[in-house]
């Protein structure tokens, strides 16, 4: 820490600032620290649990959670559609909440990440939402489907799946260019009644 390494977690805590000689405005060391230019070769270390498995990673700070999953962990279920938070194809759960992996900085990711690869049981039995998508024929090309399923699981858990209208509203962050929407809604209703039964 005292060597002036900036890109480390926890550096900015009050004690760390004091220990490093102060990121206090106006002080020489503070100004020097501020002038350090970021480089494309900078690396950030982080530990992250994905589908119950812990990972230790050294990454470019620019890595998004989506690229970490796809490029570093070879978990290619979460898809890169728009890469700007507009299509929902990259939806994953972090601590049970649905988020967009494309707009999550990997370095800033905290909590347990769940992806489509972690849904099925060890014996291969599919999650009820996966089953329901197959039974209701809720996809055509399938590209948006992992995001749809992760989002749908959260939608039911959030209790935002009480009616067709509510499902449509609370699934609006997941686009399907094949327009499989009617069957996606049916699949969510089917999975919801099955989990409630």
């Amino acid at each position, binding site marked *: 820490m005292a060597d002036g390494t900036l*890109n480390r977690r926890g550096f*900015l805590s009050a004690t760390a600032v004091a220990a490093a000689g102060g990121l206090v405005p106006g002080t020489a060391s*503070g100004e020097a620290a501020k002038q350090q230019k970021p480089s494309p070769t900078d690396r950030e270390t982080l530990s992250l649990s994905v589908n119950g498995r812990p990972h230790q990673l050294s990454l470019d700070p*620019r890595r998004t959670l989506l690229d970490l999953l796809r490029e570093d962990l070879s978990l290619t279920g979460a898809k890169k559609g728009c890469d700007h938070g507009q299509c929902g194809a990259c939806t994953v759960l972090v601590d049970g*909440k649905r*988020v967009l992996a494309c*707009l999550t*900085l990997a370095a*800033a990711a905290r909590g347990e990440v769940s992806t489509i690869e972690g849904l099925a049981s060890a014996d291969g039995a599919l999650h009820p939402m996966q089953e329901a998508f197959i039974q209701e024929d809720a996809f055509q090309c399938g590209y948006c489907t992992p995001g749809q399923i992760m989002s749908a699981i959260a939608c039911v858990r959030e209790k935002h799946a009480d009616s067709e209208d509510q499902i449509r509203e609370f699934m*609006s962050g997941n686009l399907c260019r094949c327009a499989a929407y009617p069957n996606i809604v049916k699949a969510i209703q089917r999975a919801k009644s099955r989990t409630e039964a």
Partner: protein
Amino acid sequence: MRPFAYLSADTPKGAIAASTADSQFLAGGTTLLDLMKLDVMQPQRIIDINPLAAKYGRIERSAEGLSLGALVRMAEAADDPNLNRDYPVLAQALHLAASPQLRNMATLGGNVLQRTRCPYFRDPSYEACNKRAPGSGCAAIGGLNRKHAVLGASESCIATYAGDFAQALIALDASVELAGPDGQRRIAFEQLHRLPGSSPQLETTLAPGELITAFSVPSGPWTRRSLYLKIRDRESFAFALASAAVALDLDGDEVKDARIGLGGVATVPWRAREAEAMLKGKPMTEAGAEAAAEAAFDKARTRDQNAYKPELGRRTLVRALLGAAALEI
């Protein structure tokens, strides 16, 4: 995305002290990461303030009103039962914004600082954008400006303020709690955003290194009789073409107090005080609401493709006012 140094702040002081002219605070990141990928924003340093959520991530109620921590996620506030019952305009403005995933990520503090969706601002291949490159001109004036502002615009910028929640905050006379290099201060929400004028790159009155820590919303007899009406090109997950945040205090039919925020039509969160003045002390009627809406858009200036906006805005406001008056509370 250009290289940046990533720092994580465990204390507000650490975050503020690490701030530089080239740094950005990272909360939900839903605007910041998007605009960094587009090369519209190029911070050298990202200061992750999410660890401050323990301090700034709470919703608190008192007799005086509501305190909303800046790091409360939009979804959490939108689902808060007290907000839905006592401050419905706040909850509705959040519910009608973005998508469930974005609402789980985005924070209240970040939301009010959301940048415009003007396509010329978002695409650096257009040279002219005074907001992105001061002095370069405005490609939207004379360009594709169907969604642009008719209120508060200037010859330098006609970009619409994109958010919803800010309209509810401005209508309810909220204030903003700030922490910065010179300590803490509090400003009226109405003072947070700056009109574009001749310097549209300056969007807020925040000092360098200053963080929004909370919003305070005073209680009052008008907060329960409030609603947010948002009109969009599609029914969900879209920005407002016109929106109205209204809160009314009625004594029988008579309007004792009216508060109006307008969205989708202005360059900043817009308080329609002229319209409020027209309503006060009179019975709430359709004709009265229409007169107030006329006053709200009296100074509207349209461009080639957004001439529909004053009429859409007026009708939105009339429907919101009559809807709020009819609420059973």
